[in-house]
């Protein structure tokens, strides 16, 4: 893609190479109509509201389990991902709505065509927020909802990379969280709370809520974050925003 940010091709390659293993490792844990690391049910959090009859876009859908569940509730879904292999997994799981092969930094869909745009550890983590948010804002209709779940700054600062889990020690500064090297040119992205709020406002979005979900005591995950850590500090931030 001409002019695509430099992380897009390495990230696409990483996801194409890793998709099968990812699905083997996490596929059975991911339940569909649920958010994030502990798969907290959307029926519990109620962040998307009624979806029946709404046009819904998932940015960085992977195998699109969330969208498949929303489609079953009557949403008109579109899934977007830059990994061909991940979209093949989506099809094999029965996604019978449009799956768009593209980076969220440059979405080949018209302005104002969705009521809800959402992402669960998708394109706002594996894409660069200053490039992805303008697209999300462009794609939303007036009064449309943007909901996205990302790793919290806490979980980033406290990640012991060797051990592959969170510790109580602040191992890296809050400054410079923005781009994290994932190897072979691939990268993930993260922002501080204030940076998110300013960037959302700069893209004309109103911030309605910031949900820091706490897993239940018996919460389980295949993503390596210790549940006793995540019971004490927020491992994820779900931002709820609206286009005026």
């Amino acid at each position: 893609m001409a002019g695509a940010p430099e992380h897009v091709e390495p990230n696409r390659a990483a996801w194409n190479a890793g998709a099968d293993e990812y699905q083997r490792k996490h596929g059975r844990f991911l339940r569909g109509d649920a958010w994030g690391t502990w798969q907290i049910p959307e029926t519990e959090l109620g962040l998307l509201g009624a979806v029946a009859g709404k046009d819904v876009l998932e940015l960085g859908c992977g195998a699109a389990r969330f969208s498949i569940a929303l489609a079953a509730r009557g949403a008109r879904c579109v899934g977007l991902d830059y990994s061909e292999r991940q979209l093949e997994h989506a099809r094999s799981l029965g996604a019978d709505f449009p799956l768009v092969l593209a980076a969220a930094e440059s979405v080949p869909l018209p302005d104002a065509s969705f009521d809800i745009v959402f992402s669960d550890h998708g394109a706002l983590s594996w894409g660069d927020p200053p490039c992805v948010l303008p697209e999300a804002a462009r794609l939303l209709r007036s009064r449309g909802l943007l909901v996205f779940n990302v790793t919290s700054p806490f979980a980033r600062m406290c990640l012991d990379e060797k051990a592959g889990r969170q510790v109580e020690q602040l191992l890296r500064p809050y400054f410079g969280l923005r781009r994290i090297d994932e190897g072979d040119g691939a990268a993930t992205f993260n922002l501080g709370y204030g940076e998110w709020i300013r960037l959302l406002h700069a893209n004309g979005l109103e911030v309605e809520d910031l949900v820091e979900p706490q897993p239940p005591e018996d919460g389980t995950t295949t993503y390596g974050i210790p549940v006793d850590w995540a019971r004490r500090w927020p491992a994820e931030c779900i931002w709820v925003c609206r286009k005026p």
Partner: protein
Amino acid sequence: MSEPDYVALNRATWTKANAEYTDAAARQAWAREVGWGQWHIPEGELHMLPDVAGKDVIELGCGTAYFGAWLKRAGARRVVGVDVTPAQLDTARRMDEEFGLGLELIEANAESVPLPDDSFDVVFSEYGASIWCDPKLWIPEAARLLRPGGILQFLRGSTLRNLCVPDEGPATERLLIPQRGMYRIDWQEGDDAGSEFHPPTGEMFAILRENGFELLDFRELYAPDDAPDHEYYSVPSADWARKWPAEEIWLARLST
């Protein structure tokens, strides 16, 4: 009206701090240009101050009212300072006479201010009500005092700093207490004790929204590269605060 248990503790803390530090530091503080937080980051750098020219402003938990003085000099029509500690207000009144700014200073708890509804354009707090009062009480009070569309601005310590501060001494590089349950933090340091309120980010958000505020900005402050440690407050070291945000400024608008 009976006051909550923490008010007497906090008054004792500030009576002592007034004798040890804030009274002597007041003249210099009043004379300064507008700056933010313990490292006094210049307003010219942050651009966070709302337009106060011709506006009616109330400072909740004003202490020696140096910030109220800055707001008056920035053009505010009326500045009212509210505080629970008589010693702090005595200093504020002395400074006000000396500088001749005409602040109104009232001894009251910011959770229950003896002033009418809809009487201010800006509610402000810097380490005042923003940490020493219960947000479920003082935020509704701010909403009551503000006219529709009015601005609420407050500065407080960051969530991260509060998670990393041990019982004694400066902030560590370790998360020491759970975020869940940090809404009210009761502390003891030697003979001193106090209660502070610190709902974490998402919870503070919800309180603002429930009281009709829309969040306009949220700015996390870092210590400047050349900043020394603070001379009095036992707070994060400048070195800590260069890596992690020690303070945060919230800016919100009451719905019209």
